[in-house]
């Protein structure tokens, strides 16, 4: 029944080794962080929540189209900027009316942040935004903007990076 290589280590030493390991672990400090009392120290690249810097957004819709579960809602309209006194022509600009992310659908893949050509979206490590009503997980433009304050500065590049 038993394979020959099992006899290399006797039964008793293995059992004693196991008990020694657990005893050693018991005398060392526990790894537990008592979360609600002790806040975790999260690395800057933690995927907690997505923040929006609305000034940078051009309503290009790239994020909304790349989103795998379509949880980004964007409404915008065009405004005409009249030509100056020196001649020239009227110009048009996109104005962002609504930018919302439904975090009940979001799967935190970060593709929207990667794809944004104008650096309007950022990861923030904040994660305490649970709601009792799932509809409150839809964060509108102003709420997404509030997360900007929690966005950490980008981590320094590794030594030797080019």
């Amino acid at each position, binding site marked *: 029944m038993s394979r020959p290589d099992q006899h290399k280590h006797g039964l008793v030493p293995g059992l004693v080794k196991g*008990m020694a390991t*657990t005893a050693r672990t018991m005398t060392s400090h*526990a790894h537990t962080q008592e979360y609600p009392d002790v806040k975790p120290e999260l690395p800057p690249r933690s995927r907690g929540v997505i923040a929006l810097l609305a000034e940078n957004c051009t309503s290009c819709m790239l994020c909304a189209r790349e989103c795998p579960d379509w949880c980004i809602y964007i409404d915008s309209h065009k405004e005409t900027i009249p030509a100056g006194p020196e001649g020239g022509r009227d110009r048009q600009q996109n104005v962002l009316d609504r930018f919302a992310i439904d975090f009940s659908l979001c799967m935190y893949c970060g593709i929207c942040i990667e794809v944004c050509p104008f650096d309007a979206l950022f990861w923030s490590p904040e994660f305490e935004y649970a709601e009792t009503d799932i509809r409150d997980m839809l964060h509108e433009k102003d709420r997404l903007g509030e997360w900007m304050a929690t966005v950490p500065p980008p981590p320094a590049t590794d030594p030797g990076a080019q």
Partner: protein
Amino acid sequence: MSHDVVEVVLRAVCVLAAFLVLPLVVGQTEHKVMAHMQGRLGPMYPGGFHGWAQLVADGVKFAQKEDIVPIAADKRVFRLAPALGIVAYLLALAVIPLDAHVFGANVDDGLIWAIAVTGIGTVGTLMAGWSSGNKYALIGAMRSAAQLLSYELPLILSCASFAIAAGSLSLVGIAHAWTPWWLLWQLPGAIVFLVAATAELQRVPFDAPVADSEVVMGPYTEYTGLRFAFFLLAEYAGIVVMSLLLAVLYLGGWTGPFDGYLGWLWTLLKGFLFALIIIWMRVSWPRLREDQLQRVAWLGLVPLALLQLAITAVGVVLTA
């Protein structure tokens, strides 16, 4: 006459109190010791100080749960089964002396009584598995019965060794006959007792009957609420009974410094030591396979127990 009745009632109430408190102490110890052995903290919030009230909170939770009896179950047996385990260990606890005069009932053949009634607890498990009308429960109950049959023999043989060494079947008598020499002389018997008791309690590494990853808690699969809690209470009461029994048999019970008035404390501490070992084994060791489990009993424990019996007999004859 009325004085006797008062004493009997008082002793019964004390045994019941010990039966309800000591298993919780062991359970809480298991929570904390197991957690720290795994690098965790264990319960920290219930009761404020290091989660001391965790098991009380668990009890409240169990009491609130719906009491479900499956349609396919043999309903009367199903309802009765949890009580059997509880009563068995309650009856066993009643005869275990904490001191020469601190016991529920002084039975002349206390050792036989304790061994006999603890066996009944397994009948409760068997009833639960059979009456549940569930395959997992039935497999678990069959394993449980097979385990009882194999491990009861070495358990009784090691107990017989203690009894022969002391020349008494009374637990008080055995503890009085104890000498430090027993620590070496009866060591194989104590190891056999500890292993066989762990197996009879279906604790790791002998938990194949209730293995949650194989047979989903075995005989307890269909139980919820208070009835399930009773099975858990019986398990921890079983640890208390077996640990105290071994403390009285092998470590001389209340023998120790100041045993004139601190004897009961010594018995409890010695029993607690064995309970700690049982917890420690659970954290450290993996589960034995069903055939390995039978192998340990018949090829390991029974010969060792017989050897101990022979050593004890020779020792008693030589010193008599």
